[in-house]
């Protein structure tokens, strides 16, 4: 049947067009889109064949099916389903429609077979996701959304430039291994690097994600960054530089996460930390490492989505997610609390939870590749992620001191989405064979052995012990209402201040020159009084000018 062979982005785009026509009560039907499309992809993936479209003089390949794209295809369907279910109570059409198109664009991008198709969906990802930020409808959200869009479009422009240059050099548009070599590949690398939140290019993420709507952030956390990981895995596997970038990405955000007050911003920093593990895996480039990176992307979408959902539920009910003003919410939001704990255990890689079975692959690959000191950095980051995402998020939101807030439990659809995500976290963690059977490369990795389980438990329990000890000693930094300066200070504070100063200087210069001019003008002889004099004078001057012009014209002819 031809309908079953359509590229998966088409049902999402079509649903986005039709959704506004549905009556409000029938909008839950939108949940069938990811379910049917995902099942179709899972059951019929052999019957899909490459779809080629001719665009200008280029052959575009809309549907490239291999194990890597299939894995991300499944993942994006699961993420779309969870996020749509989570925002079902929202009456704001803008969010649901842009969420649908956004998810569809991610699917289009991950099945892209050439760089032009990738570019088109890459830009669609940017243009559709920004509405999820603007839908918050606050001044902060609108300016953060604009900064987000500038970054995303910059990434798109770099991708286009890289594509054009790459085509000129190789006559190939294939979205395949490129390797870091020459300007074209660097442009592509930077384009992917922006969306992957490489250090110094990461501030769009920590700036915008916490400003999006409670439900919008769940969409945002799933697609853009994972698409960048996918693109890096396609074009730059085994690039040594990525190992160092990834290791840096795992470490620096955790310091920020410890002192950050906005709990969704804490999660945004820990998202960069998790991306770091994936980037490391891609940089190592062995089958085990790439599998680890892809598996970790898969798990991260689910557990990070789950954590963003729990914080979204708190934001929805309380109106803010400032650690300094929360606490004691377990009393009236017990289910959300449990789901948050499951998400926290998964991201911290507790045995039997999903993070454990994928993060350990990257760690093992790191040792195999001989990067012992970087492995120590990753181990530090693993302890740190437990500290800030595993303990800090549930502790300050749901326990800690009683804030006196008694919000209602989250709406049913939010609870359902969190429940499904929690079940997935536990099932994947307990039966990793399900996940491993989908992995693109051959491997025979066993996550559960006595060494592994014991060492991971020791690491986590003693990290927790450090938290308890620091708290008892009063050394733990209290949650304070504050912002912390990051790289975005450069363009949000320093550059505006500098340009304001330059503008002041320029306007002063302008005033001075006007003054100078008027004083100079005042010194000119006033000719208006004697009219006869002025006429002769004028005639003389005009003659002089005409002679001069004649001379110049003559010169021009001669030369």
């Amino acid at each position, binding site marked *: 049947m031809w309908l079953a062979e359509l590229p998966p982005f088409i049902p999402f785009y079509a649903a986005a067009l039709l959704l506004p026509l549905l009556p409000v009560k029938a909008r839950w039907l939108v949940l069938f889109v990811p379910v049917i499309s995902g099942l179709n992809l899972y059951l019929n993936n052999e019957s899909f064949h490459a779809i080629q479209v001719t665009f200008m003089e280029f052959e575009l390949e809309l549907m490239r099916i291999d194990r890597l794209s299939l894995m991300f295809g499944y993942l994006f369907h699961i993420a779309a389903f969870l996020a749509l279910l989570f925002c079902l109570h929202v009456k704001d059409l803008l969010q649901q429609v842009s969420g649908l198109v956004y998810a569809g664009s991610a699917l289009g991008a991950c099945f892209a077979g050439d760089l032009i198709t990738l570019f088109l969906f890459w830009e669609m990802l940017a243009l559709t996701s920004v509405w999820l930020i603007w839908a918050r409808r606050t001044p902060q959200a609108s300016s953060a959304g604009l900064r987000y869009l500038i970054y995303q479009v910059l990434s798109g422009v770099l991708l286009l430039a890289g594509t054009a240059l790459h085509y000129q050099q190789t006559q190939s548009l294939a979205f395949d291994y490129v390797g870091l070599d020459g300007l074209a590949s660097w442009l592509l690398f930077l384009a992917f690097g922006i969306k992957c939140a490489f250090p110094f290019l990461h501030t769009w993420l920590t700036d915008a994600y916490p400003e999006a709507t409670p439900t919008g952030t769940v969409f945002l956390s799933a697609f853009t960054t994972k698409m960048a990981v996918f693109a890096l895995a396609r074009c730059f596997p085994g690039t040594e530089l990525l190992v160092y970038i990834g290791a840096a990405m795992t470490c620096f955000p955790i310091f920020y996460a410890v002192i950050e007050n906005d709990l969704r911003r804490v999660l945004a920093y820990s998202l960069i930390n998790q991306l770091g593990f994936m980037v490391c895996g891609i940089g190592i480039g062995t089958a085990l490492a790439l599998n680890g990176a892809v598996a970790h992307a898969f798990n991260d979408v689910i557990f990070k989505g789950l954590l963003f959902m729990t914080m979204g539920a708190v934001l929805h009910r309380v109106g803010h997610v400032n650690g300094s003003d929360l606490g004691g919410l377990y009393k009236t939001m017990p289910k959300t609390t449990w789901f948050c704990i499951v998400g926290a255990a998964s991201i911290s890689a507790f045995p039997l939870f999903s993070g454990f079975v994928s993060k350990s692959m990257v760690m093992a690959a790191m040792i195999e590749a001989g990067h012992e000191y970087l492995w120590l950095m990753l181990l530090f980051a693993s302890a740190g992620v437990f500290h800030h995402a595993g303990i800090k998020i549930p502790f300050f939101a749901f326990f800690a001191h009683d804030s006196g807030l008694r919000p209602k439990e989250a709406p049913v659809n939010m609870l359902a989405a969190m429940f499904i995500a929690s079940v997935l976290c536990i099932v994947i963690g307990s039966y990793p064979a399900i996940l491993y059977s989908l992995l693109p490369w051959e491997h025979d990795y066993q996550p559960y052995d006595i060494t592994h389980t014991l060492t991971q438990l020791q690491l986590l329990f003693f990290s927790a012990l450090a938290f308890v000890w620091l708290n008892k000693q009063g050394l733990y930094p209290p949650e304070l209402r504050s*912002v912390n300066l990051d790289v975005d200070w450069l363009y949000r504070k320093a550059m505006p201040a500098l340009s304001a100063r330059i503008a002041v200087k320029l306007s002063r210069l302008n005033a001075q020159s006007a003054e100078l001019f008027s004083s100079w003008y005042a010194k000119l002889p006033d000719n208006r009084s004697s009219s006869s004099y002025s006429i002769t004078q004028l005639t003389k001057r005009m003659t002089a000018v005409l002679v001069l012009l004649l001379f110049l014209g003559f010169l021009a002819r001669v030369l």
Partner: protein
Amino acid sequence: MKKVTPPDTEDRVYFFDKPENVRLILRVFYFLCVVLFILDFFVHRHIYVYFESVPTFYALYGFVACVVLVLIAKLMRKVLMRNEDYFAETSHSPSPNPDNKESEH
């Protein structure tokens, strides 16, 4: 946006309101830490990297890593922390209460 439940539930005593429950949980936690620490001397761990041959390497590393992390982060606060409305000061009118309620129309 604060959807506060009726005051009759306010008098309920919840699990962590009782100090003995907190104490119990902490004791179980300390006990597990001790068990994991001691297990390290009895279970034969596979050693991949030479750092790991230090007895109880993972427990020590986890503890020290987190203490160092927090102490450095506290120092970072001295340099990097600003007022909550630091960025809003120069940009256009800050709104004190962002309306997080999803619009209903």
